[in-house]
């Protein structure tokens, strides 16, 4: 059987140009909100040392609550694929839009996320199926399996290469690009288009590193990323959020965002 278009690809999408990762601290949330991201991603993966995870899980309910108090910003959680249940139990509250799962590689992991989210939706009175999943395909296996991972659950709303340059150790090449990244980005955008989900990312070039870049470089990455087919991107420094908003809106660059 051939591929089928799974989702309403022509339906208007929420405005999700900038996805700002923040560590799970209330003060980090407060600071991040001042930068105007469209989506605040409370991160339990990249910005938390493994040995500090248990403490972070304890803090998570309060941090999420704080984020949800803000107007005009959506809240996602970025969770560890191997301890999703615990982190989602702690972090999912009414008002959270969904989750981001880095290092996603197996259909069983998508099914597990689906099951946990369904349980939490029921328990917390959230509409069934409304919590969305963004698959961060930042490993070789995840990229290779992009289509099958997307098709495992209708909750998968978007896919992203995440911090693929770091996770897959893609280093700057003599052509000024991260090695392999142009290939991986196009592969992922084609998979997203075929499956009817949203491709999230920016066309980062060195000296950007793991989503970190100056506002100007971030803006240019967004302009290039939009031209390639991305519809929003993750970032890691507050000052990058406005640059992504402007870039994905097609507005000109302004110093200071």
């Amino acid at each position, binding site marked *: 059987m051939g591929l089928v278009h799974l989702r309403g690809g022509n339906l208007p999408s929420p405005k999700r140009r900038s996805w700002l990762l923040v560590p799970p601290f209330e003060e980090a949330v407060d600071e991040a909100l001042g930068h105007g991201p469209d989506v605040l991603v409370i991160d339990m993966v990249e910005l938390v*040392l493994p040995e500090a995870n248990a403490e972070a899980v304890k803090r998570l309910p309060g941090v999420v609550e704080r984020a949800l108090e803000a107007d005009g910003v959506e809240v996602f959680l970025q969770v560890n694929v191997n301890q999703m249940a615990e982190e989602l139990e702690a972090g999912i509250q009414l008002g959270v839009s969904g989750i981001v799962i880095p290092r996603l590689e197996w259909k069983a992991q998508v099914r597990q996320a689906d099951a946990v989210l369904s349980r939490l939706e029921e328990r917390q009175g959230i509409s069934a199926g409304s919590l969305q999943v963004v698959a961060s395909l930042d490993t*070789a*296996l995840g990229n290779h399996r992009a289509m099958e991972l997307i098709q495992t659950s209708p909750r998968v709303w978007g896919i992203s290469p995440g911090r693929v340059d770091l996770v*897959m150790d893609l280093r700057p090449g003599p052509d000024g690009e991260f090695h392999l990244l142009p*290939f991986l980005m196009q*592969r992922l955008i084609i998979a997203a288009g075929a499956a009817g989900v949203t491709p999230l990312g920016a066309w980062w070039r060195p000296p950007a590193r793991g989503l970190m870049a100056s506002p100007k470089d971030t803006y240019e990455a967004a302009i290039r990323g939009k031209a390639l087919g991305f519809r929003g991107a993750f970032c890691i420094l507050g000052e990058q959020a406005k640059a992504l908003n402007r870039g994905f809106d097609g507005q000109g660059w302004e110093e200071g965002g």
Partner: protein
Amino acid sequence: MSSGMVRRSGLTMPVNNPRFVQKAWTRGCDFIILDLEDSVPPAEKAHARTLVREAIDMVAKGGAEVWVRINHHLVLEDLEASVWPGLKRINYPKAETAREIWLVDRIISRLEKERGIPSGHVEIGANVETALGVANALEIAAASPRITDFGGGGGYDMSRDLGVEMFVDFNQFVYGSGELELAARVAGLEVHSTPYMPNPSGSVSDGDHAFRVAEATRKLGFRMGGGLHPNVVEPQNRGLTPTAEEVEVARRVLEMYEKVSASGRAWAAVEGTVVDWYEARRARDLLEWAELCEGRDREKEETAARAMGADNG
């Protein structure tokens, strides 16, 4: 994933050219490929096969690994002629399916047993050089535990298969090389890749170009070289070996990372450099690679000195 092998430089030569074969061990290569394929005319292949066993011992005198490139369509005859003690690897060209690799593996296994070679010692280099091979990349990469590295996706045969020019000023092999590299990574193999650097003249003896490519390859984290002309051997060895300055920086990064992680932070900007788990991983890899290169150079030097002494004695 690193195989732990040091294969920075290699020369491919027709096994039926005694001048090349006799001098090969003095070139300083990490590996030497005795060719039965494209550089040997069809009418001379039968004779060339009779030369392989002796050539293996001859070219190994300088400490290089010995590989043989066989013909895609003459697998049995070529393997019978090539799998002898001293051989490290069979390069199988124009690999297109997992079944082909499986067949090569089975024949090598039999010959290893018959000829007193430890089981599994001989590797297979699966050279993908056609569109069909790219389409089957992961199956090929995963077809045998004898395959330890994988990649490529460009070269003369691929350009011929695709009907495109070989020497142009852009990378015409982006898709194929991308799929092969992705397959290598998925299969947990060492990636065999070099960055695209224009070489419109097509020169295979340009040592400066070889060094630039080798250096850029090392900076991408890759480690394998190989060529056709003795001029490129030393530049490849040098370009793929970490510099003393890089070793020093890597040690410093590890020290900084220890301090950052001890303070409970996932990352920090130290002296203008981001220090985190990822940088620490790169630093550890570089130090390990520098040590392997040093050991390999010493091993080759000692082996060559012994051969020189034996020749003089």
